[in-house]
C-alpha cells in the first residue's frame, strides 16, 4: 500500500485525473463484456423515451433500450477498436519510419510519396474501399483506420530516426560493426519513446474520434451492437424529444478523449520535468 501511495505522490495532477477518467471508462467497457444492468438489445414498448432515472441512469432510447447499458457496451467496442487501430498504425509507423528514416534514399522517397498520397486521400473513400473488399464490421474498421493513421506515425518516427542516425552513439555502434537491425531497434528506438508515447495517446484520441465518426456515417460498427458514434447518429433525430439520448454517447466520447488527453499531458509534463 505504501508503495502505491508513494507512486501516486510522484505523479502530477493531469496524469492522475486522466488516469481516473480513462480508468473508469475502460473498466465500465470491460465490465460490459460480462455484465450490463439491462440487456443491450432487449426492447420494451412500455419504456420508450424514458428520461434519466435511478432505474435507467441515462434514460431509454426509441426502442425502450437502456442507454446506460448501451453506452457501456459502446465504450467497450470503442476502446478495443481504437486500441487495435493504434497497435496497427503505430506498429506500421515504427517499422516503416525506422527503415526509411535511417536508410533514406530512393526507398524513402517512394514510401514518403505513398504516405503523402494516403494522407491526402479522403479517409471515408479509403474506408469504403477496404470495407468493400473485406465486408463491413469491426475488424475492417480497425484495418482501414489502421492504414489511414499509419502515415502520421511514419512521419514522426522517420524524423526522429533522421535526427538520431548521425548521433555519436549510433556512429560508434556502426563502427563497432553492430548489425543494422540491432542499431535500429535496440540502439535508436529506446531513445524516441518519449516522443512516441505522446503521439500514441494523441493517436488514440484520433482513432476514437475517427471510429465514432465512421459509425456516425453508418459504415462502422453494425447494429444492434452498440457503438457510441452510431448511437449519436441515431439519437440526432430525437434531439428535441429525448436530448439525453444524444448527450449520453456524445459526452461519453468527450469524457474518454479528454481522459486520454490529460493522460498524455501528464506524461509530457513528467518527461519535461525529467529533462
Amino acid at each position, binding site marked *: 500500500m505504501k508503495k502505491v501511495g508513494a507512486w501516486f505522490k510522484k505523479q502530477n495532477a493531469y496524469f492522475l485525473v486522466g488516469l481516473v477518467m480513462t480508468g473508469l471508462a475502460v473498466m465500465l467497457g470491460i465490465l460490459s463484456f460480462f455484465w450490463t444492468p439491462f440487456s443491450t438489445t432487449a426492447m420494451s414498448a412500455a419504456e420508450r423515451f424514458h428520461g434519466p432515472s435511478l432505474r435507467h441512469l441515462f434514460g431509454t432510447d426509441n426502442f425502450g433500450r437502456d442507454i446506460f447499458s448501451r453506452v457501456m457496451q459502446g465504450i467497450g467496442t470503442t476502446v478495443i477498436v481504437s486500441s487495435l487501430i493504434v497497435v496497427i498504425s503505430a506498429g506500421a509507423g515504427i517499422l516503416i519510419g525506422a527503415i526509411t528514416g535511417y536508410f533514406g534514399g530512393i526507398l524513402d522517397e517512394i514510401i514518403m510519396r505513398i504516405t503523402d498520397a494516403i494522407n491526402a486521400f479522403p479517409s471515408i473513400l479509403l474506408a469504403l474501399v477496404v470495407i468493400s473488399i473485406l465486408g*463491413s464490421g469491426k475488424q475492417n474498421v480497425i484495418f482501414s483506420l489502421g492504414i489511414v493513421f499509419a502515415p502520421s506515425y511514419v512521419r514522426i518516427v522517420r524524423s526522429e530516426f533522421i535526427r538520431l542516425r548521425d548521433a555519436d552513439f549510433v556512429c560508434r555502434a556502426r563502427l563497432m560493426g553492430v548489425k543494422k537491425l540491432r542499431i535500429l531497434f535496440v540502439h535508436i528506438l529506446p531513445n524516441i519513446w518519449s516522443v512516441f508515447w505522446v503521439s500514441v495517446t494523441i493517436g488514440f484520441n484520433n482513432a476514437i474520434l475517427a471510429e465514432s465518426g465512421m459509425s456516425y456515417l453508418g459504415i462502422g460498427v453494425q*447494429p444492434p451492437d452498440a457503438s457510441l458514434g452510431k448511437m449519436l447518429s441515431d439519437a440526432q*433525430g430525437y434531439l428535441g*424529444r429525448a436530448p439525453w439520448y444524444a448527450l449520453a454517447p456524445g459526452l461519453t466520447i468527450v469524457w474518454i478523449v479528454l481522459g486520454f488527453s490529460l493522460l498524455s499531458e501528464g506524461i509530457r509534463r513528467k518527461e519535461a520535468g525529467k529533462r
Partner: protein
Amino acid sequence: MKKKFSITLMALLLVAALGGCAGGKSSGNESSTAPDATQGSQASVSGQGTEDPNGNKDSKYGGKVVVGVQQDIDSLDPHKATAAGTKEILFNIFEGLLKVNENGSLICAVASDYSVSEDGLTYTFTLRDNVKFHNGANVTAEDVKYSLERASGLLDGTVLVASLATLKSVDVIDEHTVQVTTGSANLELIYSFTTAIIPKGSGEAEGSNPIGTGPFSFVSYKPQEGLVVKKNPDYWQEGLPYLDEVNFKIVSGADSALLELKGHSIDLYSYLTDSQAAELANDYQILAAPSDALQAMFLNNAVAPFDNVKVRQAVCYAMDRDLANEFVTGGNGAIISAPMLPTLKDYYVDLNGTYGSGANIEKAKQLLAEAGYPNGIEFSLIVPSNYEAHVQTAEVLADQMQAAGINCKIELVEWNTWLEDVYKGRNYQASICAITSDMTPSYLMVRFQSDHKKNFINFSSAEYDEVYKKAEASMNLQEKANFYKQAEEIFVKEAGTAFIQDPPITIALNKNLAGYKFYPIYVQDMSTVYFNK
C-alpha cells in the same frame, strides 16, 4: 367496329373517372358510381387534406413554398428520369396525354378524350384545345407524336420508358388527333400514356431547359440545393395552381430535415418517422396515408437456409409484424402478407390469416425442426443504410425473432452496394427493403416469375408462372383479377418472402397551408396547395 372501350376499362380496372376526361377537372364526386378503392385510405387523412379547390379565391392565391425532398434530381429529362424522387418533382412540370389523380384514377390532361379499339391494339387520342407549353407554344399532334416516339424508342431505337416498348407506331390523324398502335394488347398499357409530352425536338436541342405543360414551369436547378418552379399562368386547369413559386429543396437526410422543420426552413416534408412526427405535432399539421409500398424481409429462395419452404414459412410465422408496425411506424401501417397492396382493392386478397400478424413462436420452432434446424438458424440480413425505417424494422425483428431460434446478423450497406449485391447480384440471404408501386398489379407481381429479370428473391414456382401468365394475357377484368388473386395465394403458400407492411407516409405541412392531396403513387402535387392566410 370500334367500341368505346374505355368506359368498362376505367370503371373496373382503374376504378374511376372517365367523367374526368370530359370535364377536364379532377374530382372525387364523379367517380361515385364506381367503387373507389382508395377512398378508404383517404379517410385516414386528417384535417384539410382534400378540399375542393374552388371557393373563396382571392385570398388563396400567391405565396412561395419550400418543399423538402430527400433525393437529388437524377435527370431533368422526364423520359430519362427514373428515380422516384425526381418523378415526384417533375410531376408538377410535365404531363402526359393522361394523368393520375389523387384517387389513383386516370384523368385526361393533354388529351381531352380517347378511345381504345376492341382488340386493344389501337388507341386514339383527341387533344385538348389550347394546351400551351411553358414556352407559350400550343401543343400540337406533332409534339405528341415526337414525345411518344422518343419515349418508346421508335425515334432512335433506345427505349426510354420500358412500358411503352410494345408501341408499333404513332400517327398524326389530324391536328387534334393522334393514333397509337401497339404490338400486343395489354389492359395496363393505358397507364403508360402518362408519359410526358414535350415540344418537338426539345429532347435533343442543345442546352434546352425542361418545358412541359404542367401547372408549374421550370426556373432553375442547382445540384445539391434544389429545383425551383414558378406558376404557369396558362395552365389548362382553370384556377390552378395557387402558389407563385415552389422550391423543392434537397435536404441531406431525415435528421437534418427534422432540424430544418424545427427551424421552419421548409414548409412541407414527407417521409417522417413516427417519432419525428410526434416531435413536430405542435408546430405542423401532421398528415398520414398509406405509402403504397410493400415492405418485406425478402428471402433468397435459392440459398440455404431459405431454399427450404419450411424455413421460409417459419420466418413468416415467427415474425411479429404488429410489433414492427408499433415500434417503427406508430401502428399506422397496414399489415400485409401477399405481394399486393390493399389499396389495389380489386386485386387484393387478404391473406393475413395464413401466418398471422403477430408472432407464432411455437409453430416457427416446429417448422424449423422439421426442416432439420432444431437449434435454429443464423443468417445475414442486409439493409440499405439510407432507409431509417428499414434499419429500425430490422433491429426490432432481429431482436424479436431470436425467441424462435431465428438469428439475424444485421449488415448495413450503401444503397448502391445494395443494388449491385442484392438486387442485381442476388448474392444475399435476406434483406429488408420495400417495393414501390405504379398502380398496376402487374408491376408488383411480374417480378416473381421464375425466370424474370427482376426476380431477385429467386422465387421459383411453375404454378405461379402459369397463373401469372394467364392473368397477364386475360382481356376480361374479372377473370384477370381472379388469376392475380390465385397467384397471390400460391406465393403466400410457398412463403416466397416474409411481407411486413405497407408503411404509412407521414408528412409535416405548414399550418397555414391547405389543399394538400395524397396520391397513391410517389408524387408531390403542389398545384392544389394554397395558403389559408
